[in-house]
């Protein structure tokens, strides 16, 4: 089944994937205007090459991300070639290699998708390296609950990553 050859296909693909594509473009480029440009160019290229999309090879989401990756590289090159103008956004563009930036964005997005309790426990114990007992006292729960939330939090994170196409 060919995809994205009709304007209606593009509308459906946009509804399903634009949020994620924009989120990654924003993280990579660090600029809302460039991120918009990247998403727009991605859908335009996808529509132009719509006949070449083969659902047997990969998901539409994976294909769109592959196009976006190329667009981000092109925009990054174009930006490097011209002096910076305009106001600073305060968010620095990612300087990691693009593959790693994509994985990092997926982990961050997965962390945003898991339950609030699980996210908070992982943020405090792992990212901020606080003792389980301290976090337990602050949240008013037994220490064992913190431990089990770490366990269920990691499991939920894995499910969220798999939903985004991550496959180890």
């Amino acid at each position, binding site marked *: 089944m060919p995809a994205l050859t009709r304007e209606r296909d593009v*509308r459906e693909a946009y509804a399903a994937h634009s949020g994620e594509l924009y989120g990654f473009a924003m993280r990579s480029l660090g600029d809302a205007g460039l991120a918009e440009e990247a998403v*727009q160019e991605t859908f335009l290229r996808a529509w132009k090459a719509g006949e070449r999309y083969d659902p047997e090879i990969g998901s539409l989401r994976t294909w769109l991300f592959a196009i976006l990756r190329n667009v981000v590289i092109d925009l990054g090159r174009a930006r490097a070639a011209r002096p910076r103008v305009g106001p600073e956004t305060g968010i620095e563009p990612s300087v990691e290699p693009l593959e790693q930036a994509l994985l990092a964005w997926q982990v961050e997005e997965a*962390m945003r998708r898991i339950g609030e309790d699980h996210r908070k426990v992982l943020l405090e114990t792992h990212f901020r390296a606080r003792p389980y007992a301290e976090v337990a006292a602050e949240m008013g729960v037994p220490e064992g609950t913190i431990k089990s939330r770490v366990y*269920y939090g*990691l499991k939920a994170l894995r499910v969220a990553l798999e939903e985004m196409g991550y496959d180890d």
Partner: protein
Amino acid sequence: MTTDDHRDWKLSLGAYALGDLLADERAALAAHLEGCPECRAELRELEGVAALLPLADPARIEQPAARPPADLGARIEAQIAAEAAREGREKRRRRLRFGFGAAVAVAAVAALLAIVVLPIGGGESSPAQQVKFASMPNGVSIDASLEPHAFGTEIHMYVKGIRSGTLCRVFLRDARGQTFSAGTFRYRWGDDSEAVLSSALDLSQATELIVHAGGRTFMAPVRQATALVSGAEIHPA
């Protein structure tokens, strides 16, 4: 081991995977893992996720997810609609000019082993060169137009009648026999669009257009400002 014990061990696997357990807890869980394949399998999965965590930036996690502006989708649709309208007009114009119609097909059959290069396309002002490979296997056609640019040559290919999914590789060759890649495309059955390729070779230096497709090689001479060219060959690979 009771079911409750097993469950308790299991709930500690996340802290174990992240290296958060105290030494004695860690040793005790390691002993349990020795005899529990289920926990070992689960640990492997959790360790895979734990290994990714250092990539994430906690400050970014706590920021709300960036969302595109509400009108971006409408802008993209408008741009695509405009492109579609423009392409439709161009395709109709090309077909009228170069005649993919029945009358031309009859003429092409009559000229079966001769190569026909149609007059230079695009009107008087355009230097584009329109090439039609006429000496082709039954039902197959390749049309190409070449346009000079500062970067080299832009090549528009329009293929019909070959197996869907066939990889086509396109090259330009100069007078010294050096080939310059113009890239690849795939023909898809039912696809009515043309492939747009580019090669670094200047059109004024190009002597031959070469297409490798489905194990066969199709060649057509390129001549600047010449209306008729003969001598195209087909070399099965």
